[in-house]
């Protein structure tokens, strides 16, 4: 990563905050309030365990949605809106630029979750953040590679990612337990179903390292494919 690009990271973070960070905060707060509000209203007393259970419930809604918002148009917006014209007339490599953008978005996403968790601690019950942040990070990284690849490939990446997500869930439910080609297809479909057990991290549980490796490895392969697309495919 060249020095000029590294210095540009602060601008990318500003863009994230303005274009996505605020939306993530608003959605995170809105969903949290719908769960926390009624419980507070009836005077529920929280313990650390019940607070963690509540976080799992909220995060199962927020983490995925937030990741989708964070990924939306990561690369495709620049192509669609023509912003690439000036950006890449400068001495900047497209794969390096978008790799850094991915890293910046990841950092921004985690900052949003840290802030939301801080607010949760103030309003509900303070919770040790490592498990929650790790869960949020794994959700982002597990989907990130696929989202990166799709955004490098098509202009309307958000619906495409939604289609992949929903299609995978649908196929997994339809093909579950079958043999032959269906089993092969199941094996190569995005391992989205593996995201669910990750929530155990929030309640202090553990997750099989192989599950994490499979999720991250699968995502990394698609990330690499996205970088190849950026290197090889004409941007205009």
């Amino acid at each position, binding site marked *: 990563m060249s020095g*000029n690009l590294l210095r540009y990271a602060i601008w990318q973070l500003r863009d994230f905050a303005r274009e996505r960070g605020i939306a993530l905060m608003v959605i995170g707060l809105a969903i949290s309030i719908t769960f926390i509000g009624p419980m507070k209203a009836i005077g529920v007393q929280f313990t650390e365990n019940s607070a963690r259970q509540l976080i799992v419930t909220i995060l199962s809604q927020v983490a995925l949605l937030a990741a989708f918002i964070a990924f939306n148009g990561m690369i495709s917006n620049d192509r669609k809106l023509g912003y690439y014209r000036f950006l890449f007339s400068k001495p900047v490599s497209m794969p390096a630029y978008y790799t850094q953008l991915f890293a910046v978005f990841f950092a921004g996403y985690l900052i949003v979750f840290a802030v939301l968790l801080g607010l949760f601690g103030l309003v509900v019950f303070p919770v040790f953040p490592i498990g929650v942040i790790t869960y949020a990070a794994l959700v982002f990284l597990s989907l990130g590679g696929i989202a990166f690849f799709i955004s490098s490939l098509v202009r309307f990446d958000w619906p495409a990612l939604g289609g992949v997500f929903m299609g995978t869930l649908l196929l997994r439910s339809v093909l579950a337990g079958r043999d032959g080609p269906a089993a092969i297809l199941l094996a190569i479909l995005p391992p989205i179903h593996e995201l669910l057990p990750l929530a155990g991290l929030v309640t202090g549980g553990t997750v099989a390292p192989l599950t994490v490796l499979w999720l991250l490895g699968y995502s990394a392969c698609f990330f690499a494919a996205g970088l190849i697309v950026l290197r090889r495919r004409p*941007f205009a």
Partner: protein
Amino acid sequence: MIEFNSVTKIYKSLLGRSVTAVEEFSLEVAEGEILGIAGPNGAGKSTLISLLLGYLEPTTGSVRIDGVRPRSYIERHGIGYLSELMSINPAWKAQDALTRFATLAGIASAGTARRVEEVIDQLGIDEHRSKKIKALSKGNLQRLGLAQALLRDERVMILDEPTHGLDPVWTQRFRGIVENLRMPGKTVIIASHNLDELQRLAGRVAIVDRGRLQRVVSTGYDQANEIAGVYRIRVAGGADRLAEIIPGAKDTGGGEFEITFQSVPELNSALARLIAGGVMVASVVPARSVLEQQFREAVGATT
């Protein structure tokens, strides 16, 4: 410095329909040259520029800048580029946009603010620096685009319709800016509809139409000696004798005549005869520029 070698670009739609945007285009641009690219709408100018920036890959043939593929050159050195379509995030402020581009261009942190101030001053954007891009007029946006292209002293500059949207004052100033770019080691390509502008700024102009290079015209004086041209002669007296001396002269009214000469020496000879014959010649101007005549011939030949 820049080479197009038998470049063909064919766009294919999902339905299998193909459109040839550029066909067998070959051209070399020397270091230190200012080259114009002229052509009617849809001639393939924008495709050529996208190929030169590496945003498109040729279907066949190759494009090279300083001997390497465009993206390789740009990722290493960068180029000064002004796009016809001014695509900057509308939520950015003008000064921030320049600071961002200066950062990406690799201007050292310590010098970024100073350089941004310099181009803001040079392009007269001072009063607009805090405005968002979406609040800028077409002309101011064009000046901002030019400012970001000038941020760094690039060896290659590509200016696509650079005076589009500029008022006459800034069009004039723009010419001065481009004149200052005329120096050894700096290669400038200007794509424009404005033939007068290209005539003034470019040493050569490539005329393209329907994706093909029709001809390359030198805009220098020597070339003017070689070709036929229509001249407009205005006389202050003796208009009746002009028609006798030059029978082919076309009276356009108000003491003005349009006359076709095959060369500049023939023009001078006719003027000598007019003056000797008692005609008071007030002015002689080309009815059309050399480039305009060449353009009409080149484009007319294919349309």
